[in-house]
C-alpha cells in the first residue's frame, strides 16, 4: 500500500457551539473535510443527580427526576414512578393509566417536532425550523392547558396522576388532532420529498444494523437502522397493548428498507408523530371514569412507601429519544430509595453516532449529532468535585485552545487512517 501523506486536523467540536444545544465535546480527527475518528468527551452537564438523590425522599426525587432533561421531563418522571410502583407493588387506577398515555404522547409530538426543526436548522434550512416550531406551539398550548406549564409539567405521582383531564381538555385535544391532521402532511412532504433535504440526509452518518445492535442503539436511532424494538411494545406497558402499539419502522413510512442514515431516522420520527395522534384518539374514547390516584395525600404516600418500600424495581418506557430505564432499590424504614439509577437513550446513541460519523464530512457532524436528538442533560448524572487544589486548565482562549492543540498534535502520520465508516457521500443533485 503506497504511503499516502495525509494532513490531519483535530477540531474540538463543542462544548459551547451554536450547532449543539448542549455541551458535549467531540474531538474530530479530520483529513481535509473527511472525518477519520471521533472521540466523545462528556461530563460538561454533570449536576450530581444520583448523589443528590441519596439525600431526598421518594416524593422529592420526582421533582429531581423531571429536571434531568427539559424536553423529555415527563418520560423521566413516568419511568421513575413505574420503577417505584414495581418495587413497592402499588396498584394504579385504570383512568390514571390512560391519562399517562395521553400526556406521554403529547410530549412525544412536541419533542419530535422540536427535533425536526433543529435538524432543518442544522442544514441551514431555517424556514423548516420556524414552521415546525410554529406548529409545535399548538401542542404546547394544549399541554399548558392540561398541566399548567409548557415544559416540566409534573403530572405524575407514585400511584397515579396529579391532575385530571376534564371535558374542556378533551375538546382541546380533539381540536389539536384535527389541526395536526392538516399540518403534518406538509411537514412530512418537506422531510421526505424535498430535494435539498434528500441530498443532505440520504446516506450521511450511516449507522449499519450490526453497529446499532453492538452499540445498543435505541429509539428512532435504532429503529432507523432496522432494530425492531419499542419499549412500550416489548414491555407490554400499562394500557398500551390494547391501544394497538407497534414499533414504527422506516419501511412503513418511506417504503424502502432501513439504511440507517439520517433520512430514515427522520422518517421514523414522522411515523411516530402519526402513531401518537392515533394513540391519543383511542385513549380519549376508551378512557373509563374513576379516581386518578391511589393515595390522595403525599405524606400518606411517603408513610406507606416507608413500609412497602422493600426490594428492587425496574421501570422501562419509550421516551421520544429511545428506551429509558430506571432502577430503584428501596429498604424498609427509609423514606428515600437506597439506590436510584437511570440510563438515558442518548447514552448508547452518542457512541453509535460517534462510530457512524467516521468517513463522513465535517458538514455532516452537526446534522448527524442532531439526528439522534442528543439530550446530554440526561446523559450526565454524577458530577465532579473541585476541591481546594485549584487546577485550572488555563485555556487562554476557547478557539486559541484548538490552535494550540492543532499545533501540538501536528499530525505524526505514522498510523494509517482506516476509516471504519461505510458509504461515501454521493451528492445526488437536483
Amino acid at each position, binding site marked *: 500500500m503506497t504511503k499516502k501523506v495525509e494532513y490531519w486536523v483535530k477540531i474540538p467540536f463543542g462544548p459551547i457551539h451554536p450547532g449543539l444545544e448542549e455541551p458535549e465535546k467531540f474531538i474530530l480527527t479530520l483529513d481535509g473535510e473527511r472525518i477519520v475518528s471521533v472521540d466523545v468527551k462528556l461530563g460538561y*452537564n*454533570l449536576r450530581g443527580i444520583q448523589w443528590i438523590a441519596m439525600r431526598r425522599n421518594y416524593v422529592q426525587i420526582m421533582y429531581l427526576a423531571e429536571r434531568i432533561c427539559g424536553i423529555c*421531563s415527563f418520560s423521566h418522571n413516568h419511568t421513575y414512578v413505574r420503577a417505584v410502583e414495581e418495587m413497592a407493588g402499588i396498584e394504579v387506577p385504570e383512568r390514571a393509566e390512560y391519562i399517562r398515555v395521553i400526556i406521554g404522547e403529547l410530549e412525544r409530538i412536541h419533542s419530535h417536532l422540536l427535533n425536526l426543526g433543529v435538524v432543518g436548522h442544522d442544514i441551514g434550512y431555517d424556514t423548516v425550523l420556524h414552521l415546525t416550531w*410554529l406548529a409545535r406551539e399548538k401542542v404546547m398550548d394544549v399541554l399548558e392547558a392540561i398541566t399548567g406549564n*409548557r415544559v416540566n409539567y409534573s403530572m405524575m405521582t407514585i400511584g397515579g396522576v396529579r391532575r385530571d383531564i376534564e371535558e374542556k381538555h378533551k375538546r382541546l385535544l380533539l381540536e389539536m388532532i384535527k389541526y395536526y391532521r392538516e399540518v403534518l402532511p406538509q411537514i412530512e412532504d418537506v422531510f421526505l420529498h424535498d430535494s435539498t433535504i434528500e441530498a443532505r440526509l440520504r446516506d450521511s452518518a450511516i449507522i449499519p444494523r450490526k453497529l446499532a445492535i453492538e452499540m445498543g442503539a435505541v429509539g428512532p436511532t435504532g429503529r432507523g437502522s432496522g432494530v425492531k424494538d419499542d419499549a412500550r411494545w416489548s414491555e407490554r406497558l400499562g394500557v398500551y397493548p390494547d391501544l394497538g402499539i407497534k414499533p414504527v419502522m422506516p419501511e412503513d413510512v418511506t417504503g424502502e428498507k432501513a439504511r440507517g442514515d439520517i433520512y430514515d431516522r427522520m422518517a421514523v420520527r414522522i411515523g411516530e408523530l402519526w402513531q401518537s395522534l392515533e394513540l391519543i384518539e383511542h385513549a380519549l374514547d376508551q378512557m373509563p371514569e374513576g379516581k386518578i390516584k391511589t393515595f390522595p395525600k403525599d405524606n400518606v404516600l411517603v408513610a406507606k412507601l416507608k413500609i412497602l418500600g422493600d426490594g428492587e424495581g425496574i421501570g422501562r418506557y419509550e421516551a421520544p429519544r429511545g428506551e429509558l430505564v430506571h432502577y430503584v432499590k428501596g429498604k424498609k424504614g427509609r423514606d428515600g430509595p437506597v439506590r436510584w439509577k437511570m440510563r438515558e437513550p442518548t447514552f448508547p446513541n452518542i457512541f453509535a453516532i460517534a462510530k457512524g460519523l467516521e468517513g463522513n464530512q465535517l458538514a455532516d457532524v452537526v446534522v448527524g449529532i442532531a439526528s439522534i436528538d442528543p*439530550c446530554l*442533560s440526561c446523559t450526565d448524572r454524577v*458530577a465532579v468535585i473541585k476541591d481546594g487544589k485549584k487546577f485550572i486548565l488555563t485555556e487562554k482562549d*476557547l478557539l486559541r485552545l484548538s490552535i494550540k492543540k492543532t499545533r501540538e498534535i501536528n499530525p505524526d502520520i505514522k498510523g494509517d487512517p482506516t476509516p471504519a465508516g461505510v458509504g461515501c457521500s454521493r451528492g445526488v443533485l437536483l
Partner: protein
Amino acid sequence: MTIKVPADQGNSQERKRLEKRIAQLCRFIGKSPWVFHVNSGSCNGCDIEIIAALTPRYDAERFGVKLVGSPRHADILIVTGPVTNQSLERVKLVYEQTPDPKVVIAVGACPTGGSVFYESPFTNAPLDNVIPVDVFVPGCPPRPEAILYGVVLALEKLAKMVKGEVPPEEGGE
C-alpha cells in the same frame, strides 16, 4: 480605537469625556442586540424556550435580536444552567471574549439559585459569583415572554449604565 473606561482614573474630567464618547457611540446597541447562548450544564428546558422566543409566535427578531454563532459578534450573553464545575472555565472564557459593551442575562432558576441542584457539590450555582450578571430571569423554565422582557430590561440597564447613571459595579435598582 478601543475605549477602555478606566474605573479609578485620577482626573474624573478625562473619564467623563470618555464616558460621554461611549454613550454617544453606543446608543445603537439597543436597536440591534446580537445574542449568544451559553449552556453551562442546563437541562435545556430553558434553551428550547430561548429558541422558541425566536420562532414565529414570539419572534424576537422584530427587535433585531439575532442568534449569532461566536462570542466575538455577541452583545448579550444568555447563560442557562447551574454552571457545573466543568463549564465554569468555559463560561469565564466566553465572558472575556465578548466585546466590551455587553450584557449578561441569567435565564432560568438554575443560574439564579441552582433550583433542585442547590446542594449539589458539583455546581457553583448563583452565576453572580462566576461572572457579573445584569438581569436574572427566574422560572423553571421561564416563558418566552419572560425571556424577551429580560432582554428589554437588560438593554435599558445597558443604556443607563452607558450614560453613567447606574455605576456598573452594584446592581442598581
